[in-house]
């Protein structure tokens, strides 16, 4: 294990809390988000999210200026709420704090309550404390999801649906999970479901808030579901945990279903909870994945990879690499990853590789270790282009954010079909890299003029 003891962060491997919060709120039907803080935060995060999803991302800001910072930002926040209601007419408003609002000690819950009373507004306004220095975008996503469930899930009337709670995965992944649930004929509440709102079809005329998202009434009913399957293993204080503690909804935590084993776990769990069989068509997909794994296993064995990104994603990519004989030499995340570390260490290690795990890290450190370990493939979000540019390590793009390619939101990696898709991308990257130089390499290695 390798730890960092330095102060400066050189080339960040994570973003800040409110960014994750925005994505979580985009998964609620007809909702609008407001950042309480200075304007740049909203603008920067909008730009970042827009470039990944290739969608317009409207996020309001209370535009705190010097006066608001010194004397309190209540007036700005109230005006911002008024304007958001007027322009967007949302069914739900999320208020996320920023570093600035938290540091000056804004009591957003009080302001919200007084605002609702004075304007006689009945739509939910949900607050989430997300100071940028309090954690990364991964934590922001989980924390905000927690706050949404805590605020809305009040109806404990029992029904026959199951909760499926997701971490920040691609919109294509969300749609794949829904497809699997539907193939298994399982009634579900997927939360937060941004598969349509952050990957909306071309419609005419333009809608300020795109269709889709988890219905507010569905979030309200999550306390009455027969079970919660929470996709994500790194965090403890999660919406699923809340539902279990508050409403006794049984909680099952599973890794993101990428890889044969993780997908097996997910589907078997669905089968056990509901009693519904896994249909033949899904079994065919499994066999096809297995067939594909055989096709590529020898090529994959040459892979010596670095995996980086959000902890949840990193863990599933890690186990998928392990089951395909790709050597995961370095695992890195910008977030805190105590659980992830335990899980990686406890994993059966048939490849007998020396795995290094670093968390709260940056790309300058990742590059240094990648070079030391002679890694030949990188898997993670597009900031890993730095590893390609500086270290010549080819990158398989996966996760959030993908800023330098189109289709980041459409990258499919979950389920048997998604896994095969993902595996092919890795294998082909390895092959491409090998073929690029093998004539020259072999010549240099073996040719001798006689």
């Amino acid at each position, binding site marked *: 294990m390798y730890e960092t003891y330095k102060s400066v962060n050189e080339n960040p491997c994570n973003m800040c809390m409110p960014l994750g919060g925005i994505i979580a709120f985009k998964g609620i039907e007809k909702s609008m988000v407001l950042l309480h803080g200075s*304007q*740049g935060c909203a603008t920067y995060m909008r730009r970042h999210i827009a470039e990944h999803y290739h969608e*317009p991302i409207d996020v309001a800001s209370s535009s705190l200026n010097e006066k608001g910072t010194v004397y309190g930002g209540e007036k700005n926040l109230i005006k911002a709420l008024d304007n958001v209601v007027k322009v967007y007419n949302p069914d739900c408003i999320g208020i996320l704090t920023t570093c600035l609002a938290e540091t000056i000690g804004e009591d957003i819950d009080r302001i919200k309550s007084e605002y609702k009373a004075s304007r006689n507004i009945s739509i939910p306004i949900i607050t989430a404390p997300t100071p940028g220095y309090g954690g990364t975008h991964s934590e922001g996503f989980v924390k905000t999801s927690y706050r949404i469930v805590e605020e809305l899930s009040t109806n404990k009337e029992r029904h026959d649906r199951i909760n499926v709670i997701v971490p920040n995965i691609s919109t294509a992944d969300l749609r794949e999970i829904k497809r699997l649930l539907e193939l298994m004929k399982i009634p579900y509440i997927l939360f937060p479901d941004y598969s349509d709102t952050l990957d909306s079809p071309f419609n005419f005329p333009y809608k300020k808030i795109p269709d889709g998202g988890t219905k507010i009434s569905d979030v309200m009913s999550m306390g009455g579901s027969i079970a919660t399957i929470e996709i994500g293993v790194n965090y403890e204080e999660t919406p699923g945990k809340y539902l279990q503690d508050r409403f006794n909804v049984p909680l099952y935590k599973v890794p993101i279903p990428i890889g044969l084993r993780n997908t097996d776990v997910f589907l078997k769990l669905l089968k056990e909870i509901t009693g519904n069989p896994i249909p033949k068509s899904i079994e065919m997909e499994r066999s096809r994945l297995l067939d594909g794994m055989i096709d590529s296993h020898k090529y994959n064995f040459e892979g010596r990879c670095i995996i980086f990104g959000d902890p949840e994603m990193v863990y599933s990519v890690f186990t998928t690499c392990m089951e395909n004989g790709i050597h995961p030499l370095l695992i890195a995340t910008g977030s805190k990853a105590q659980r992830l570390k335990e899980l990686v260490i406890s994993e059966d290690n048939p490849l007998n590789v020396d795995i290094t795990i670093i968390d709260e890290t940056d790309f300058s450190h990742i590059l240094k270790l990648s070079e030391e370990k002679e890694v030949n493939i990188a898997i993670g979000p597009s900031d890993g282009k730095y590893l390609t540019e500086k270290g010549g390590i080819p990158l398989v793009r996966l996760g959030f954010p993908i800023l330098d390619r189109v289709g980041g939101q459409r990258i499919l990696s979950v389920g048997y079909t998604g896994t095969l898709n993902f595996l092919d991308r890795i294998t082909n990257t390895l092959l491409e890299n090998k073929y690029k130089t093998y004539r020259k390499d072999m010549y240099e290695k073996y040719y001798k003029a006689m």
Partner: protein
Amino acid sequence: MELRLDIPEREKFIKMKGKHHKKEFICNTDSVAGSVSQRACVYSGARVVLNPIEDAVHLVHGPIGCASYTWDIRGSLSSGSELFRNSFSSDLKESDVIFGGEEKLSKCIDEIYEKYKPKLIFVYSTCIAGVIGDDIKAVCKESSNKYNIYVVPVESSGFIGNKAAGYKAACNSLLELIKEFPVLKKEPLSINYMGDFNLAGEAWIIKGYLNQMGLKVNTIFTGDSNFESLKKATASSLNIVQCAGSMTYLAKKFEETFGIPYMKVSFLGIEDTSNSLRKIAEFFNDKDVMLKTEKLIEEKTKMAKHIIEKYKSYLKGKKAAIFVGGGFKAISLIKQFRELGIDVVVIGTQNGQKDEYEKIEEIADYGTVILDDANPSELEKFMVEKGADILAGGVKERFLSYKMGISFIDHNHDRKHPLSGYEGAINFAEEVYTTACSPVWKYVKDGVKRYV
């Protein structure tokens, strides 16, 4: 047409050419809270201006987000060091916010010095650094003395104003730095080129023209610049300013401090490029320079016009909307669209100034909507009402435009092709043609017809 809006307070930021307005038009002031302004913060303004200084370390004193969102997102090119393409942050955490971050900042500088031995470090203040009251100036001074290098504080706390305040903070930091160096004797035919950040090599194109005219370029602010080139800035006889919003302030300060006069120029489009080059040549009043300039203009114009004419035949009669950062750029874009036979029907800027809006109104067509600090909802409303076929803007506007079925020109900072000078004018025409005449819109419009 009505200018009535969902947010009545926004009405004073909007006007229509030829319409009598009861309220005075307002710009360059705080955004209306909750209006989804497209503007960024003070820090972002400062970072944009300084970041292309290629052998400097740019250290952001604040929580990680500020550095994360600005890591290598701009397309500034360098002919030398690539140190500037890294993003350094003191990565303030909760405990630093409570106990103060000065010590951590100081350690960060130590580590950076240890690893890179840079001659120049810029330390940017962010919202949090400002609010917890870290004395960045003192830390910078101490580190400067410790290592005998230049550690320059940039006062860019996000909440102290808007992006324009960040430009000013950056200019002040540059000025303070340059004042540290000996003032040089002015070279007669030399020039500083301000307000170009060398996106996709734009500064190289303009530098090429100026060299061809017989002029020497001492320093570019800040595209493809470095510590050594900044030292030479006081040896110039003239400053020309391309991005007026960000660097007119520095040019004024240069005039006051070092007696170097300045002029605003624009290299967007054939017309503005030619006019600007002529204006520069006239300033030097040198026969040889004037001759060379006319020759350059003639050759380049002929070449560019020949190509642009080809595209123009496809574009005539289309309508454009503009939403860019500064007013000066918007003015050039109006002319540039006209060179292609395209009328501009909506013009917005993030940070335009009063005199720029006056000029915009003067040259705009009757009925054109002019907006300061426009938001997506207003852009949408006016593009629909005025029937825009094309929008020129930045990243966030691109997806709004596409979702509305409207073609789009990237005038953002991470583009991979230059839009300056004659070469840029050709690229612009080509891009307008590429987007406005793409077959995709046929299917979009067919869809509209089918469903409406």
